[in-house]
C-alpha cells in the first residue's frame, strides 16, 4: 500500500499551497510509503504520493501520467487482476511503459471512464485528475480496505489517505469532533462512512466513486452487496459442489495475493480457522520461504499459542511470535490512536499495531490475513444469537427454545439456573420485533449505548433529535426485506463494522503504521459474490457457523483447529491500564476533570466517578459496560489531545523523487 493526498481548486486557481505545506502533507503519510515521494502540480490541482514499493520496484513511480499527459493518477493499493486487464487493454490498442498495476488502473480509466472500477479486483484508494477537463475522480475499493478522507470546502477539495495529512496541509482548517460521528461510534462501535469523526472531514464510501466537475460533486456506487431474493438467484448446487467451488475461488484469490507482488508475502496466524486456511493456500502458491506471524498473550484467557504453533509446524513456515503483555498495551495506546484516528471501544487494535512492527522488523512488507471470513461466511456469534432469538420469538412461552442460548454462550450452562433466567430476560428483549430490520443488532447497539450516559450536556444537545439507528435502517437497499434473515444480518454487520472498524482500526491503519500491507483473500470480490449467493444453510447450518468454509478447510488444517470453538479475538481492556501497577501518567491527566471538560464530549463528574470506581476495583474482571466506557473515553480523550488541541506533528523534510510541477516555467 501507499499514501495518497491532493488538493484541487474547484472553480478557479486561488490558493496556491506553498511547497512546505505540500511537503508536510505527504510527510504525514511517510509511514504508509517510506520508499519514495512524488508530486504533480498544475494551476488547479496537486496530487501527492508516498510510495511503498511492492510491484515493479524500479518503475511505477507516482503520480503517473497517461501517455498524452492529460490524465494523472495517485494510487494506493493493488489491482490484483491487472495482468488480465492489461491484456484486454492491449487488445484495444493501448501500450504500456511499466509493469505496474498503477499504469493499468490509469489506462483502464482512460478507456472505460468510471465504469472501470467495477472491473477491478483489489483494494484501492485512487485519485485521478483530468487536467484537460479539470475533473477529479476519487474511488475506493468494494469493502473500504484502503482509506480515503475528503475535506470539501466551498472552492476546493482536499483528500488524503489519512486525516493527519489533511490537517498537515493547512493549519487554519478547523479541527473539531463531529458530534454525529461520536454518536455513531457509541452506538455501532464505529463510524459508518461517509460519516467521519472530525467535523468537515468525511470518508468516501466503500464501493463508490465521486467526481468533481465544474465545482460540483456527484457520487455513484459501482458496487453494492447483494444477496439472493429468491431460490432462483441462489447457488443451485449441493453442499459438496459449493465446497469444491469455494475451494477453487478461494485458492485463486489467495494465489493472486501471493503471486502479484515483487517482494515476499507472509501471513498472520491467529490459531483459528480463517487465517490457518489462507496461510495454507498461500504457502502452496509460492515456493520461497513462507513467513508466518502470531501474537501470544501473557493473559491465558486470550492466548492461542498452541494452535498457532501446530499450524506453523504443519506449514513448515518460518514462524515469528510476539508476546503481548498488559503493559505493552497500555504503553502503545497513545500511538495507536494516532493511527486509528477515531475512538475505539476495546484495545484489540493495539496488539495488531505491535504485530505489524514485528513483521516489518523481519523485513516483510506484505501479509495475508483472515479478516473478512466472519462477515462473509457468517462466523460471528451475533448471527447465531439472532437465529436463536428469532426461533424463540415464534413461540415466546417456550421453556426449551431459549435454552439454545446456552449452546451459544457455554458460560451460561455453567451458570446457576437463576442466572440463566436473568440472561433470558436480557436476550428476550424486543422479541416481538423479530421480523424487523436491525433485530439482530439491536441488543449490541443498546448495550454499547450505555457509554452515552457519560455524555456532556454539550454533546447530548448536539445529537438530540438525531437517531443514527433509524438513519441506517432508512437507507437499507430496496431488496433488503426479500433477503434471507442471515443475509440481512450479514449486510448490517458489513455496513456497520467492516469498513469503519475492522478493516480500519484492526486493519489498514495498524498495518500501515509500520509500512506493512495487508491482503485479504476472503474479501476478494469473487469470493464474496460467491458466498453471498450461497443458501443461508450452507453458511450457518443449524447453529454451526462458517459451515461451508470448515468443510473446505478440512483437508488442509489440523482437525483440532477445525473442531475448536470459535474464539473471538480479544485483548485485555481496562485491566491493561488498571491493575498491579499505577495507571500511566498520561492517562491520569486525560481523565482529570479539566481535560474532560476541555474535550467537551463527556461529563467530568461522570468520568471522575467511573475512574474512581475502576481505580478502586479489586475483582477479577471489569463488566463489559465499564470496559467499553473506559476504553471509549480514554481513546476519545487521546484523540482530542493529539488531533484537536494540538495539531498532529509532521516532519516537512521530504525529498520528492518524482516531481512534475507544471506551474514552474
Amino acid at each position: 500500500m501507499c499514501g495518497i493526498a491532493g488538493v484541487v481548486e474547484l472553480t478557479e486557481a486561488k490558493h496556491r499551497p506553498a511547497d512546505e505545506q505540500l511537503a508536510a502533507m505527504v510527510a504525514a503519510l511517510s509511514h504508509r510509503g517510506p520508499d519514495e515521494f512524488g508530486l504533480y502540480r498544475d494551476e488547479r490541482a496537486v496530487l501527492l504520493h508516498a510510495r511503498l514499493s511492492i510491484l515493479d520496484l524500479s518503475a511505477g513511480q507516482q503520480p503517473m501520467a497517461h501517455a498524452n499527459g492529460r490524465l494523472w493518477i495517485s494510487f494506493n493499493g493493488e489491482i490484483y487482476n491487472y495482468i488480465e486487464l492489461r491484456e484486454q487493454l492491449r487488445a484495444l490498442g493501448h501500450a504500456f511503459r511499466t509493469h505496474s498495476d498503477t499504469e493499468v488502473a490509469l489506462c483502464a480509466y482512460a478507456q472505460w471512464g468510471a465504469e472501470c472500477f467495477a472491473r477491478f479486483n483489489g483494494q484501492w484508494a485512487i485519485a485521478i485528475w483530468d487536467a484537460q477537463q479539470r475533473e477529479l475522480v476519487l474511488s475506493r475499493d468494494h469493502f473500504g480496505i484502503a482509506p480515503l478522507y475528503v475535506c470539501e470546502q466551498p472552492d476546493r477539495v482536499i483528500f488524503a489517505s489519512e486525516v493527519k495529512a489533511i490537517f498537515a496541509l493547512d493549519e487554519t482548517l478547523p479541527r473539531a469532533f463531529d458530534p454525529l460521528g461520536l454518536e455513531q461510534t457509541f452506538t455501532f462501535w464505529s463510524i459508518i462512512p461517509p460519516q467521519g469523526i472530525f467535523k468537515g472531514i468525511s470518508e468516501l464510501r466503500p464501493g463508490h466513486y465521486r467526481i468533481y466537475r465544474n465545482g460540483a460533486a456527484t457520487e455513484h456506487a459501482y458496487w453494492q452487496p447483494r444477496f439472493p431474493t429468491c431460490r432462483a438467484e441462489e447457488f443451485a448446487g449441493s453442499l459438496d459442489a459449493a465446497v469444491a467451488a469455494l475451494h477453487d475461488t478461494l485458492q485463486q484469490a489467495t494465489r493472486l495475493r501471493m503471486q502479484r507482488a515483487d517482494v515476499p508475502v507472509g501471513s498472520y496466524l491467529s490459531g483459528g480457522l480463517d487465517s490457518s486456511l489462507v496461510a495454507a493456500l498461500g504457502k502452496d502458491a509460492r515456493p520461497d520461504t513462507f513467513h508466518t506471524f502470531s501474537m501470544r498473550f501473557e493473559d491465558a484467557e486470550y492466548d492461542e499459542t498452541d494452535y498457532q504453533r501446530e499450524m506453523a509446524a504443519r506449514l513448515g513456515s518460518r514462524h515469528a511470535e510476539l508476546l503481548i503483555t498488559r503493559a505493552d498495551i497500555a504503553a502503545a495506546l497513545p500511538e495507536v490512536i494516532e493511527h486509528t484516528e477515531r475512538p475505539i471501544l476495546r484495545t484489540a487494535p493495539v496488539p495488531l499495531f505491535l504485530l505489524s512492527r514485528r513483521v516489518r522488523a523481519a523485513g516483510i512488507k506484505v501479509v495475508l490475513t483472515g479478516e473478512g471470513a466472519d462477515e462473509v461466511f457468517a462466523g460471528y456469534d451475533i448471527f447465531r444469537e439472532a437465529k436463536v432469538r428469532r426461533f424463540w420469538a415464534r413461540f415466546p412461552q417456550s421453556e426449551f427454545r431459549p435454552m439454545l442460548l446456552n449452546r451459544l454462550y457455554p458460560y451460561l450452562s455453567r451458570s446457576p439456573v437463576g442466572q440463566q433466567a436473568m440472561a433470558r430476560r436480557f436476550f428476550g428483549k424486543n422479541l416481538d420485533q423479530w421480523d424487523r430490520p436491525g433485530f439482530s443488532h439491536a441488543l449490541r447497539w443498546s448495550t454499547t449505548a450505555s457509554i452515552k450516559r457519560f455524555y456532556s450536556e454539550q454533546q447530548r444537545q448536539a445529537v438530540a433529535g438525531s437517531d443514527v439507528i433509524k438513519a441506517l435502517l432508512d437507507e437499507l437497499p430496496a431488496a433488503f426485506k426479500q433477503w434471507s434473515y442471515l443475509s440481512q444480518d450479514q449486510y448490517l454487520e458489513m455496513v456497520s463494522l467492516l469498513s469503519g472498524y475492522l478493516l480500519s482500526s484492526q486493519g489498514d491503519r495498524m498495518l500501515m503504521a509500520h509500512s506493512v500491507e495487508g491482503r485479504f483473500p476472503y474479501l476478494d470480490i469473487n469470493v464474496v459474490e460467491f458466498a453471498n449467493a450461497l443458501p443461508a444453510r450452507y453458511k450457518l447450518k443449524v447453529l454451526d457457523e462458517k459451515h461451508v468454509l470448515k468443510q473446505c478447510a478440512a483437508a488442509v488444517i489440523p482437525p483440532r483447529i477445525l473442531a475448536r470453538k470459535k474464539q473471538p479475538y480479544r485483548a485485555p481492556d481496562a485491566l491493561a491500564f488498571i491493575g498491579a501497577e499505577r495507571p500511566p501518567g498520561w492517562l491520569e491527566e486525560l481523565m482529570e476533570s479539566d481535560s474532560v471538560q476541555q474535550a467537551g464530549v463527556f461529563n467530568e463528574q461522570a468520568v471522575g466517578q467511573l475512574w474512581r470506581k475502576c481505580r478502586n476495583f479489586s475483582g477479577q474482571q471489569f463488566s463489559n459496560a465499564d470496559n467499553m466506557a473506559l476504553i471509549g473515553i480514554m481513546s476519545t480523550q487521546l484523540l482530542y489531545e493529539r488531533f484537536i488541541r494540538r495539531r498532529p506533528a509532521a516532519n516537512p523534510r521530504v525529498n520528492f523523487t518524482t516531481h512534475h510541477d507544471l506551474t514552474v516555467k
Partner: protein
Amino acid sequence: MMEAKHIEQQLRGYILENLLFTKDQSVLKNETSLLESGVVDSTGILEVIMFLENHFGIKVEDEEMIPENLDSINSIVSYVQRKRAA
C-alpha cells in the same frame, strides 16, 4: 426489620453512582426493569448482587437470582426485606 425506604435509598445511591454515573434521581424509576432498560447487562447484574451481599449482609442463593427478585428497585427492596426477615 430494615425499613424499605432505607434499603431503597442505599440501593438507588449505589446504582446511580456506580452503574449510571450520575446523581440525578429522575433517571431511574423504582419499577423500571434494570435488564430491559439497559441499566445493567446480563453480566453487570453480578455487580448488583455483590453490592447486596456486602451491604445488606445477605447471601443471594443461586436459585434466587431470578428477574422476579432482582430486576427492579422495587423487586430488590422487597427481596432484601424478605431475606433479612428470614
